[in-house]
């Protein structure tokens, strides 16, 4: 019963994080100094109230917990849905559902795999096709060079999956939290679409800019 | 005792339970006089209730709340589907919220007069008294009646009465009231006071030492024939309009429970009183399985007409004004299209009999909104009748905003039913009958918005205050499945099912049912006469014999077998139909829903014969292919003066 609320609340946290993350990414267009400075600044956030990197670690813990709760709830709800209909329809027509609502589960798996890769790639830098570096800017630029097109492609697909996930996720989360009054449904749908588009585009710009040589 | 070729006349019968004295004190007197059951003893007393419509669900909920051990049965997959759910118009109550001169007395008066002086004054007065409490009860349960902007309940005038006393919930009043009663019943199921048996059909009543002590029911999923015992049995099983095959009743509505009780000794009263509703969607082909009613509120703005000349098959819009016959407005200038149901129905039949009917088979008349749309505007008409127009269009594929609707009368309600006294007890002690299944309150004709009132009055307020008088003598001697009466009842049921399954003839159950329906409609429908009724009796007897010789029911008892269910019901309709015709034949007068061609005024209006027929005809079962016995219950009118109706 509380699973869906957990799903919605953690979803909200993750969406807010994504927006902040996207904002940071876009700093890449201001040059290496600004980007690295921003990344470093995150470690200083809350200092001296918190120890150095303290905020970052709190954020990481909250995010990790959110992700785990989100995934756990999703898995349980998916299993329950499977159990709720064991015999499938021979013919099934889509009446009004959006494509986004179809892809929530498979998209979610893709996103989870991507997040792991993404952390290994650009955060921990274990996977470093473009060479390791201490500068986040260099890691980014190095990682999306044209010769690593497959990395960019994977990133691209995953970000689009995130967009679809948000398209239905924001709408669904709002419903679960009880905000979807009939009079507001239109607006919530627009907001969900807007967030999905903005986040998708915002995340796509930096790597594409690198790949096409606009940022080097 | 006298005897003729069709029936035997037995001793008169009378209601012993209604107290004497001023009519407004009788119900109080009865409640005071009835023996009470100590709350601690109630859980030792068990009641079986068959049917979960308004009358059954409300009784189950109320008796459960009181602490009795209730076992409930319905043939549907859920108690919420009982056919009360389909009532559209509303429910009457003498609240006088409109300050328009309504009162309990006026509702009582209107109902007795509307019933054409063939109902009991005491019962009707109690119904009017109780009506007030029903609305309170339903609102408290959360029934979302229509309200005005001030937040108070809205009322409308219905069925030609001059006061606004009808409470409604859009066109779905029956649904909302039933859901209210259903939820109250579900609450008791959760509380453990009511045990529900869905998909169970009652096939026999068990009578021990003259008392109703249980029923035999078939589990419709497994086919198991089950025996259930109780200290009292309540039948809330609705009407028998489906004897006509085509009616506005649900497909499963049937007479079996009532008829089985009749065969075990419960008298069946006034079986010929049938209400035929004028505004239904006509039959479109011989595959037709049921008829759909449209609220008669349509007659407030629609004008009814047929072409002046028969065989005029032009598009109705091409027929000029002076070649149309607005026959109701012509014959009844004072009331016009708003004449009572029976008059409107019969007038439609007459013009169709003259060959002037419209649509497939010539069985229909136009209900035209062109004038209303011109006068009020399409939007106003849509606001008032939009949902009905949509329904019409969905069923017929025609757009009533453009083309006149076609309507035709259809069987809608049966005023007759098992005979009960003021306590709602039948002639079998311990067998109570509520709602449409009994005969008590509507006389020969029911007023609009009164069926819901009666069902809920019986279930919420009347039965729970009278059944205690009977149960106070209980608990009765415990019996079990080995009791000879229980064994015999079960054996009868099993034998009948075996017979139905073993005939393996050449005709389907539906084909018999349709044929019976045609006989009933042609000879015992809107207009009846001696010759036709005699013919019908012959035809029904032949058909019944053929049924048992040639019916085809596949499969076994031990499975979900819808053909077997139907066969069981049709077998009983084939016996009931004959009794209806005998009743219609013996009542050589016209009253309410019973119109005898031989008894009409010079203008062709119904003519009662109060000197001869001011009685309830309670029929005792005499055996299949044997004569029934007629017991007359004399009707006396102390308060309302008997008058001939006139709507000219």
């Amino acid at each position, binding site marked *: *019963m509380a699973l869906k*609320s957990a799903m919605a609340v953690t979803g909200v946290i993750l969406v807010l994080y994504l927006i902040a993350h996207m904002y940071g990414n876009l700093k890449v267009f201001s040059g290496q100094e600004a980007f690295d400075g921003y990344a470093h600044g995150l470690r200083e956030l809350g200092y001296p109230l918190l120890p150095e990197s303290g905020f970052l670690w709190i954020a990481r813990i909250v995010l990790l917990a959110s992700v785990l709760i989100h995934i756990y709830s999703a898995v349980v709800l998916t299993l329950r*849905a499977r*159990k*709720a*209909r064991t015999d499938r329809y*021979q013919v*099934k027509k889509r*009446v009004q*559902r959006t494509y986004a609502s179809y892809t*929530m589960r498979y998209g979610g798996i893709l996103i989870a795999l991507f997040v792991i890769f993404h952390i290994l790639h650009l955060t921990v830098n274990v996977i470093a096709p473009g060479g390791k570096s201490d500068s986040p800017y260099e890691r980014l630029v190095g990682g999306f060079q044209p010769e690593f097109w497959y990395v960019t492609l994977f990133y691209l697909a995953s970000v689009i999956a995130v967009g679809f996930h948000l398209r*239905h996720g924001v*709408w*669904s989360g709002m*419903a679960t939290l*009880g905000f*979807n*009054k009939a009079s507001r449904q239109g607006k919530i749908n627009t907001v969900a679409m807007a967030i999905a588009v903005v986040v998708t585009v915002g995340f796509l710009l930096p790597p594409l800019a690198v790949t096409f040589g606009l940022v080097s | 005792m006298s005897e003729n070729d069709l029936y035997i006349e037995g001793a008169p019968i009378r209601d012993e339970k209604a107290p004497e004295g001023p009519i407004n004190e009788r119900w109080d007197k009865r409640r005071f006089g009835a023996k009470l059951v100590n709350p601690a003893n109630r859980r030792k007393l068990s009641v079986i209730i068959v049917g979960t419509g308004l009358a059954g669900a409300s009784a189950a909920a*109320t008796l459960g*709340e009181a602490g009795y051990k209730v076992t409930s049965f319905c043939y549907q*997959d*859920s*108690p919420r*589907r*009982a*056919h009360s*759910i*389909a009532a559209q118009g509303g429910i009457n109550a003498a609240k006088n*919220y409109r300050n328009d001169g309504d009162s309990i007395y006026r509702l009582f008066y209107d109902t007795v007069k509307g019933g054409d002086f063939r109902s009991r004054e005491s019962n009707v007065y109690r119904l009017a008294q109780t009506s007030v409490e029903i609305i*309170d*009860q*339903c*609102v408290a*349960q959360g029934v*979302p009646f229509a*309200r*005005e*902007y001030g937040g*108070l309940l809205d009322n409308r005038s219905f069925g030609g009465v001059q006061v606004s006393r009808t409470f409604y*919930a859009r066109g779905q009043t029956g*649904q*909302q009231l039933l859901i209210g009663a259903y939820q109250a019943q579900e609450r008791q*199921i959760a509380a453990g006071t009511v045990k529900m048996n869905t998909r169970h059909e009652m096939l026999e009543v068990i009578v021990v030492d003259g008392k109703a002590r249980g029923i035999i029911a078939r589990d419709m*999923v497994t086919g198991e024939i089950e025996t259930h015992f109780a200290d009292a049995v309540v039948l809330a099983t609705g009407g028998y309009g489906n004897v006509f095959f085509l009616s506005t009743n*649900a*497909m499963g509505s049937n007479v079996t429970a009532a008829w089985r009780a009749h065969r075990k000794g419960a008298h069946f009263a006034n079986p010929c009183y049938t209400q035929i509703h004028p505004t239904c969607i006509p039959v*479109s082909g011989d*595959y*037709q*399985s049921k008829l*759909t009613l449209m609220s008669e509120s349509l007659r407030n703005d629609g004008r009814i007409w047929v072409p002046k000349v028969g065989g005029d098959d032009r598009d109705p819009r091409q027929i000029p004004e002076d070649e149309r016959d607005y026959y109701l407005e012509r014959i009844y200038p004072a009331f016009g299209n708003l004449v009572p149901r029976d008059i409107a129905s019969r007038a439609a039949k007459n013009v169709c009999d003259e060959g002037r009917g419209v649509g497939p088979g010539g069985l229909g008349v136009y209900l035209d909104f062109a004038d209303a749309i011109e006068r009020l505007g399409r939007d106003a008409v849509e606001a008032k009748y939009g949902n009905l127009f949509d329904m019409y269009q969905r*069923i017929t*594929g025609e757009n009533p905003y453009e083309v006149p609707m076609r309507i035709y009368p259809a069987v809608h309600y049966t005023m007759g039913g098992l005979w009960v006294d003021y306590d709602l007890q039948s002639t079998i002690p311990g067998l109570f009958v509520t709602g449409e299944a009994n005969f008590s309150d509507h006389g020969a004709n029911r007023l609009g918005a009164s069926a819901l009132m009666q069902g809920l009055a019986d279930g919420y*307020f009347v039965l729970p205050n009278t059944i205690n008088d009977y149960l106070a003598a209980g608990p009765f001697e415990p019996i079990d499945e080995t009791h000879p009466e229980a064994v015999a009842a079960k054996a009868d049921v099993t034998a009948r099912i075996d017979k139905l399954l073993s005939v393996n003839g050449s005709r*389907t159950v*539906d084909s018999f049912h349709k044929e019976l329906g045609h006989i009933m409609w042609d000879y015992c429908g809107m207009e009846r006469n001696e010759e036709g009724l005699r013919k019908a009796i012959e035809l029904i007897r032949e058909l019944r014999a053929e049924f048992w010789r040639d019916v*085809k029911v*596949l499969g076994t008892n031990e499975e*979900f077998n*819808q053909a077997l269910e139907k066969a069981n019901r049709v077998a009983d309709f084939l016996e009931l139909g004959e009794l209806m015709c005998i009743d219609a034949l013996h009542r050589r007068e016209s009253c309410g829903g019973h119109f005898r061609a031989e008894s009409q005024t010079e203008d062709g209006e119904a003519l009662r014969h109060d000197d001869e027929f001011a009685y309830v005809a309670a029929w005792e079962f005499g055996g299949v292919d044997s004569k029934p016995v007629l017991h007359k219950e004399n009707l006396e009118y102390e308060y309302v003066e008997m008058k001939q109706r006139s709507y000219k």
Partner: protein
Amino acid sequence: MNITLRVWRQKGRDDEGRMVTYKLTDVSPDMSFLEMLDVLNEKLTLENEDPVAFDHDCREGICGACGVVIDGEAHGPERTTTCQLHMRSFKDGDTITVEPWRATAFPVVKDLVVDRGAFDRIIQAGGFISAPTGTAPDAHANPIPKPDADRAFDAATCIGCGACVAACPNASSMLFTAAKVTHLGMLPQGQPERASRVVKMINQQDEEDFGGCTNIGECAAVCPKGIPLDTISQLNRDLLGSLSKGIG
């Protein structure tokens, strides 16, 4: 019209089912879908074949008994009940696939008939107002603003047919439960039990093996009575309120 039907046949709850094909000729466009099945059954009976079992009763769209999935849509291509669907919605020569509601909570009884007792049990859990007979105050004691009464009515028109469950990709009964929570929650009489009602009904719904709601909206899209999707949001609001008060 000539119609080819592919119908799900299943003898009993625990039997294997399969699709069986039947051909019907001379189908009238004015027949209702169920009348077309009647014609099929008359034909099957005369051919000594077991007729197709399907639930139906009022045949005027209000009792909620009928309901099958027709060509992948609950109640078929029109937004109405199966009994109100007419053959004029199909074309001559069409092949029509007819299946029962499919949900673990609605086991097949036979062919197209399913057991929807789970809905009754959800109502038993709390879908009522406790108002024993005889205890009611005057009906006008509690005026109710018309918009509230209208919204309560809109939600109360649910006929319990189960199309919402049949259409839901998760086989969730959320719209059914939400309709009742909204109906009773909009009325002053429903307030005393409001907080506990939603929790009890949701718990029962989970116990019945319905899936969870993921706000996809197929339920409201197929609902023959047009129960609004936002009733689900209203249920969620009530539910969060109850959980935050420690109820549940």
